[in-house]
Every structure is written in C-alpha cells, then in structure tokens.
C-alpha cells in the first residue's frame, strides 16, 4: 500500500465539532464590498472625470494609513489587511462632491478611522458607521467647501439640489428638477460623486445580495419606507415620490451604509426596525428641514439606537414563549 494509505493515528486532529468551516473570512467579505463599490466608482468617473479616482485613492490611502499608524503607535494588532479601512476610505472618497478639496478627504478619514472606529476598539466595536459619521462631520463643520451641488458640466456651477426643491414642506416637483430617468441613470446630476448613478448603485446592491454579504431587507425596507411616507405626503404623486427615492444619498446610504454590520442592528427583527427607522427619519428630515444630508443623520441616529433595539428584539428562542430578557453587551 502507498504511503498515504495507512492511518497515522498520532497525527489525527482531535478538536470537537464542527469539523468543517466556511471559506468566507472577514477580509473576503470586505473585498466583496470594495468590488460592489466599483460600480458607482466607475459611474462617478464617467460623469465627473478622473479626479474621482484621485479622491478614492486619497480616501483609501489615508484611511488605511491612519489605521496602520494608530495601531503601530499603540502597539496593537495591525488589522489593515481585513480591508475594512479601505472600505471606509473608498466610501468617504465617493461621499463628497467633485469640487471638494482633497484635504477634506484626509480630514474625514482621520475622523472616521481614529475617532469613530479605533477609539471604541476597532473593527466590530464602533457604534457609528465611520464613513457616515465623517461625511456628516464634514457637512456640519466644513460647509461651503463641500456641500455645493456641482453639476458635471464643463464649467462647474453651483445650483440647488433636487432635494431642496422637493424638501422643506414642498409637496410638488418643480420643473427645475431633473427627470426621473436622469435621476436614475445619473446624467447631468451634481452631488456627491458616488451617489449620482442609482443604476450603478443598484448593480452594486444586487452584487452584495447575491454574494450574501448584506441582508436585502435593510436597503429594501429603508427605501420602501421613504417611498411610502413621501408618497402619502405628496398626495400619492408618483413623480414626487420617485424624485425623493432617486435623489440624494438614499440609494447609496441604504446600500453601503445602513447595511454596515458593526453600527447596525444584530438581531433579525432589530434589522427590520433599524431599516424602517432609517426610512422614517430620512423622510421626516427631508420634509421638515431644509437641510441636506438627511440620510447621514438618519443612519447615525439609528446607529445610536441599534443596541437598544437589539436589546428589546432579541429573537425568541425555539420552544420559549418570550424573547430572552438581556443586557446587550458587546
């Protein structure tokens, strides 16, 4: 018999079940998110030009760099190879208008990685989505530089955003607002570079769902909730509702930000409430305040509420009548 034919019992592993492990790793999951972000990145480059690639590169390099430096200085395990910092950097790069100064991307990355992600303990421990927190911080503290609504025409011009027309108690869609098809494809639109083409985001969304990276219920319920509320508020005007659905950060946020593992809800029912909550807050902020960035605020508020939601919506265990009473501790 050949060498392999005999059983060398001394070399057999003796670890308890299960004996097989899924091939997915955290790094693989983050790679999938990066791949899914390529679709809006390509669309953004097509609409806004090569500067987009520079923005993404600076986002990734600075985020990964800050994570590496922080962990090196504090003598922690280096986790940049799990690609999560790269995801944050790419999100930040895609979250700003094409005119945003490049230093604002670095400031955003520093805030996201150092304050929001690493301070609470690094990957999996951040209560808030680093990229969302960074963009909201930039909007709050660094407006005029970065919130100008810029169209991708030869001479970039600042105009009002479609949301300013349909938000703030407006119930109709004025003619100045781009048509639904343009809003969907992203042609002639301004705004944050990654958010313009809903088509590209939709492809990224489908990719993430097919790969089993995100739960489709989060983006679906989020967008549906906004659709339902704006539809009711706009007297069931299809154009009004769809303008809301296809404008601003909704698609981008629902696909890439509300689905963030760490800052979202953990429990199945918690995810449902989280997504609907994001939708309600987004719609309310848009309708009531004349304020850009409703999606960012909505997601951050729900991030803050997620532990509480999980605490009350822990799944009912098989055979038990009630959900387990517990403290949510992570």
């Amino acid at each position: 018999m050949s060498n392999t034919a005999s059983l060398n019992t001394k070399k057999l592993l003796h670890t308890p079940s299960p004996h097989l492990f899924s091939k997915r790793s955290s790094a693989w999951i983050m790679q999938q998110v990066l791949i899914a972000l390529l679709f809006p990145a390509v669309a953004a480059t097509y609409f806004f030009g090569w500067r987009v690639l520079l923005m993404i590169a600076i986002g990734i390099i600075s985020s990964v760099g800050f994570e590496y430096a922080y962990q090196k200085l504090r003598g922690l395990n280096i986790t940049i190879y799990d690609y999560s910092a790269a995801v944050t950097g790419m999100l930040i790069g895609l979250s700003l208008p094409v005119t945003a100064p490049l230093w604002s991307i670095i400031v955003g990355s520093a805030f996201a990685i150092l304050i929001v992600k690493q301070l609470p303990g690094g990957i999996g421990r951040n209560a808030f989505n680093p990229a969302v927190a960074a963009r909201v911080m930039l909007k709050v503290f660094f407006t005029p530089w970065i919130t100008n609504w810029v169209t991708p025409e030869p001479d970039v011009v600042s105009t009002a955003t479609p949301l300013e027309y349909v938000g703030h108690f407006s119930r109709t869609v004025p003619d100045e607002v781009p048509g639904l098809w343009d809003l969907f494809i992203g042609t002639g639109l301004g705004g944050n570079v990654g958010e313009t083409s809903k088509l590209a985001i939709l492809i990224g969304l489908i990719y993430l769902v097919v790969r089993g990276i995100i739960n489709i219920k989060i983006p679906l319920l989020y967008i549906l909730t906004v659709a339902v509320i704006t539809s009711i508020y706009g007297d069931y005007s299809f154009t009004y509702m769809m303008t809301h659905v296809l404008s601003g950060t909704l698609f981008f946020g629902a696909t890439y930000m509300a689905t963030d593992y760490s800052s979202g809800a953990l429990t199945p029912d918690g995810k449902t409430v989280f997504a609907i909550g994001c939708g309600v807050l987004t719609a309310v902020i848009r309708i009531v305040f004349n304020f850009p960035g409703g999606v960012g605020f909505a997601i951050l508020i729900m991030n803050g509420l997620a532990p509480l939601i999980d605490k009350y919506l822990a799944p009912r265990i098989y055979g038990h009548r009630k959900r387990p009473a517990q403290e949510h501790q992570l």
Partner: protein
Amino acid sequence: MLLQLMKKREGAYTVERKRRTEHKPTEEASVPEYLIYPLSMHIGAPAKPVVEKGDYVKIGTLIAEKEGFISANVYASVSGQVKEISDQPTMNGKGPCIVIKNDYQDVYEAPLFNEGEELSVDQKKSLIEQAGVVGMGGATFPTSVKLSPPPEKSIDTLIINGAECEPYSTSDHRLMVEYAKQLIEGIRVLHEVLPVTKTYIAIESNVHESVAVMKAAIEDVDHIEIKELETIYPQGSEKNLIKNLTGREVPPGGLPADVHTLVTNVATTFAIYEAVRLGRPLTKRITTVTGEPIKEPKNLWVRIGTPIQHLIEECQGFQLKTGKMIHGGPMMGKPLTSGQVPITKGSSVITFLEKEEAVRSERTPCIQCAECLHVCPVSLQPILISNAYENGDIDQAEKLGAMDCIDCGNCSYICPSKIPLLDNIRSAKSEIKARKEDN
C-alpha cells in the same frame, strides 16, 4: 422571492458532499476476526454483560442486558467465542466492551418469537425493546422509551426522519432507495402500537431518488405524506423537523412526546421492522464510509462491533492523507484517534477529512455580521453567549439561552472571523450544569 430572501434562514447551506456515495448500492462488508461491543452504545445506563469469557455465542445471542429504564440490550453479530470483557477504545473514549472472536460459521440464534405467532400491542412494543433498538440517526436514545410516553403525552404524529442533513452521509438515503417496502412495514408496525393519526416521511429534496422511491412505496398506504424539505443544515434535527412539519415546538428541556410527536430515523424504522416482523435483534446497520481521503467510499452493511480500521481496508484504504477521522458527519460527529473504535448502533457515517479542511483558520475580531444569529436553528444569539462566556458572565450566558443550544455547529461553521462559538457555548453549558449540581 423577496420575502424568502428576507426571512431568517435558521440553517446553513453547508457544502454538499454526498455525490461520491449517493448512487452506490449497499454492499455487505466482510466480517473481521474480532468484534468489539461497547456496553454503552446508547444513551442511558450501560448494558450489563450476561456472557463470560469463553462463552460460545451465535448471531443474535444476547450478550449484554439493558439495565434500568433508559438502556438497551446488546447482541452478538457473529457466531464465535467471547474472548474478553475489557476496556477498549470507543467513540466516547475508553470504555468497557465485550470482545468476540468470530468463528466464521455465521450460526443464527432462534428468532425472538415463533413464526406465525399472533402478537399483541404490548408484545410488539416489548419486541422493539428486546431487540435493542435505539435511535440510529446518531442520538442512540432507546426507542422503547419513546414508545411508552405517559398517558397525557400520547403520540398522534409520527415523523419518519429521512432528512439526512450531514454533508457526506448517504446511509439513510440508500436504505430508502433499496428497502422502501421494509420501511413501510416498519411504519405499519408503529401504526399498530401507537395511536397515530398522521405520519410524515421527511426527506431532503437533494436526494431525488429516495423521494421518488418512497413516493411510489406509499401509494397504497393511508395517512402517510412525504415531505420534501429544503436541503439546509440541520434540516434533520428533531426539534426543527417537528416545527417545520407540525408547527409545534418542543418546550425547553422537553421531549418530542411533550408535543405528541414521535420522530424515528429511517434506519431505526428498519430495525423496528426486523424486530417485530422477523424477530431479529439489532446486529447490523448501513454505514457510509466516505470523505475525500478514502479511495473507494461505500455504503456498507456492517455487523455492529466491526472496528473502523477493517472498513477502511474494505474501502481500499486512502488516496490522500487523512487529517481527521470522524464518527458521524463533519458538522456534529465525534473526532476519533483510533482505528480500533467499533461501529455501533448509531454509526450512520464515518467521515475522513483532509487536514487542510479540518483546520480552523486564525481567529480575527468579530465584525458583527450576525450570520451566527441568521443560521441558528433554535434562534439563539451565539456571539452574545460566546462573549458572555469569555467575559466570565455565566448568568448572562444562561439568560441568553445557552442551554437551548442543540450543538449543530452552524455558528462555528459560518463565522467569518473563525470565533470558536460552539466551543464557548459548550463550555458555558457545562459550567451552568456544574453550578446547578452544586446547589
């Protein structure tokens, strides 16, 4: 479709590895010179030897007697001589065993009842008990105990479990394909001894052949329904089968009888048929010997007591280096370190894995992906129990339902950060048990 996607899965789509043995008809395995019978090849009290060194035994001679209510008889599966009663390696570590030297004469003991004898319900139940029938899907719980529940827990629903959800196992599948008639007869026996009004035969939809054969076999039998179930692990777990088929949930710490249900594995049903229709005690079973390292994987009719080493030779040895030898499947099986461990009543599959696939990669921080919650068949939050255990908070682990864990292994399997979730939950469980015993 969308709703389906949004639903909690309560299971994992583990790799499916039945292909190498799925279409291989069962073969009679050759019989070794020495056979080893652990006194504890069932859940409950070990059986008590009723033979002594030097005694002559036949196939079907009682060699160890059940002791107490939850226990089971053990029979010789060859004719020959009792060589010794001593500690031998078993799947649960070293334990007392009867070793018999085969004389290769294959002399049979008389059946458990005389041919043509009319059997009463109690006699039939007693035959199942006498024959040493236990749950042959791996749990090895004595079947007779399940057949005699207290009156307020009378059985109205019977589930024949052919949902063989462990990735490599095909022994139940082959039994259904090749012995459908006998299985139906076994179900008839159960109908004769229990006030059952509804019977389900549960089969995973990936094994089309057994679904087709069983469908044809039940055509002229009333009250039986074939339930084709999604191929998802652990579809065949007793608790999940009951919930999926009847909507009932077994209460915490309870038994299927608490919800008026009896679940028996197909191999057990076959053993019931043999006991009550033919008067044969349980002395052999089908065992799948498989896994990539095995050169010629097979579905074998094996005499109980046959050492695994003998079956490896029966399958032409190995073509690749083995990293792990498992009694059972890769999700719930027990790791073995000796080829001398014998096939027992619950040995539905012996799986061999290459080293690379059996090694867990390095642990990384939890990313809160919630996959472990998603795949838990009893809706636990494995990561939270694991965290509670690692923080030394056993109270919290208990509140989170550690004791409800059914050990299926899905959480550890799916975790992208390779956190030893099930190991931690098991440790939490034993600490909770230890504390209860202290009080």
